[in-house]
């Protein structure tokens, strides 16, 4: 059965910053895909079949071949669909892009998650906020152009959608300030440019429903302490 029909599916959830990364890249490259909205409290058989190791979203499926882990997915998409590349072509700059994308996950996302979950333990929370700020400072120092990718958004910018969109939501809910224009002028400006990018603008989730979901989760955390 020969067909030119590529089957491209993204299993995800609108509230996930990791799914958002993949969503943005697919739109940036003009790739048609089916979005499967997963209920993470009641995971589909499909999700469990395609990501048995972690049972998480996003899962990207190309012609029935599944890939998990957002940064792995992003590289796969970039290698398979060459238009509007998100990784540089030379090995050294690719290594740097990989380094900073991983840094965002290991240091910034991780610290922010700890900030949220350490509600109730002031000392622990203070430590996590400090870690978050240190990591943001490192990224602030690293930013040299309009975007991390230069004149155009690249994989690091896309990985950093968490910082541009999700971190401010976390800040509003917890009342904590980590990314501010005063402390991190370059990063703050970057976030505004990034969120105004024509593709990004259309593909981040609506803020109010996201805020409501995260607030409900946060309230339940507080109640459990």
């Amino acid at each position, binding site marked *: 059965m020969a067909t030119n029909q590529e089957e491209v599916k993204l299993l995800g959830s609108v509230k996930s910053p990791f799914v958002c990364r993949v969503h943005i890249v697919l739109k940036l490259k003009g790739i048609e895909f089916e979005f499967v909205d997963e209920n993470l409290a009641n995971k589909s058989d499909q999700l469990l079949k395609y990501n048995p190791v972690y049972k998480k979203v996003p899962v990207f499926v190309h012609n029935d071949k599944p890939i998990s*882990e957002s940064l*792995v*997915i992003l590289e796969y998409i970039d*290698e398979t669909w060459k238009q509007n590349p998100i990784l540089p072509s030379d*090995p*050294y700059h690719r*290594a740097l892009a990989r380094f900073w994308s991983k840094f965002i996950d290991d240091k910034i996302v991780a610290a922010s998650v700890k900030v949220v979950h350490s509600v109730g333990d002031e000392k622990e929370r203070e430590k996590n906020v400090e870690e978050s700020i240190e990591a943001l400072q490192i990224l602030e120092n690293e930013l040299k152009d309009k975007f991390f990718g230069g004149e155009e958004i690249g994989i690091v910018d896309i990985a950093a959608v968490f910082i541009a969109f999700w971190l401010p939501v976390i800040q509003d809910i917890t009342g904590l300030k980590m990314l501010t224009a005063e402390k991190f002028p370059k990063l703050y400006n970057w976030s505004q440019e990034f969120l105004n990018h024509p593709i990004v603008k259309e593909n981040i989730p609506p803020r109010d429903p996201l805020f409501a979901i995260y607030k409900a989760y946060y309230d339940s955390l507080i109640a459990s302490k």
Partner: protein
Amino acid sequence: MATNDLKLLGGWFSPFACRVQIALSIKGLDYENIVENLNSKSDLLLQSNPTYKKIPVLIHGDKTICESAIIVQYIDEVWKNNATSSILPSNAYAKAIARFWVSYIDDKFFNSLRYGLFAQDDESKKKYFDELEEVLLKLEEVFNKLSEGKGFFGGEKIGFIDIALGCYLSWLKVKEKFTGTKMFDEAKNPGLVKWAEAFSAHPAVKGILPETDKLVEYAIAMAQGLAAAATAAPK
């Protein structure tokens, strides 16, 4: 003399530095091997990796590259030579699968091994080593699927996953000495048992993995240091 202007800031005890050494060995590259003392890090290390201040760091001319998995991919991309020395598969999907499993190894395998080895109490030790057993069962499955009977995760030749997991073999031998149980259960992980032998004997790997006795001494000193820090540090 390093003809490619390559320096590796590493350490014989570090599985991550070993990964880079193996990659350089596969490509037949000369380099200057600088062994760091982690209790007294060199200025060069602190300048080259200000973000993490960790080894390994590859210095290639005026470029510095950090994080072992990233360094290995860099080496593979710069020295594309020929198919027989390629580390990552050429097919995009196979590459993604390799990257996924390397990420899994660095997360699940590494954490259960190191927390198990240095856990202060028996209950924690058991928890982490039980987790490690689960991880090894998973990796046995992966090995059987990806090797297609050819001996390595990369098939006929060692690849990204082989290097990422193989660098831990000496540390698994340390676990053997510490716990008295074999690093791979022959009944549950027969594939990994054979793989470990083949990997260790591979020409690109020989001489790079540290000797068990030397590493055991190092691990004991590490454990003592951690125990002292745990009792001394206030909460």
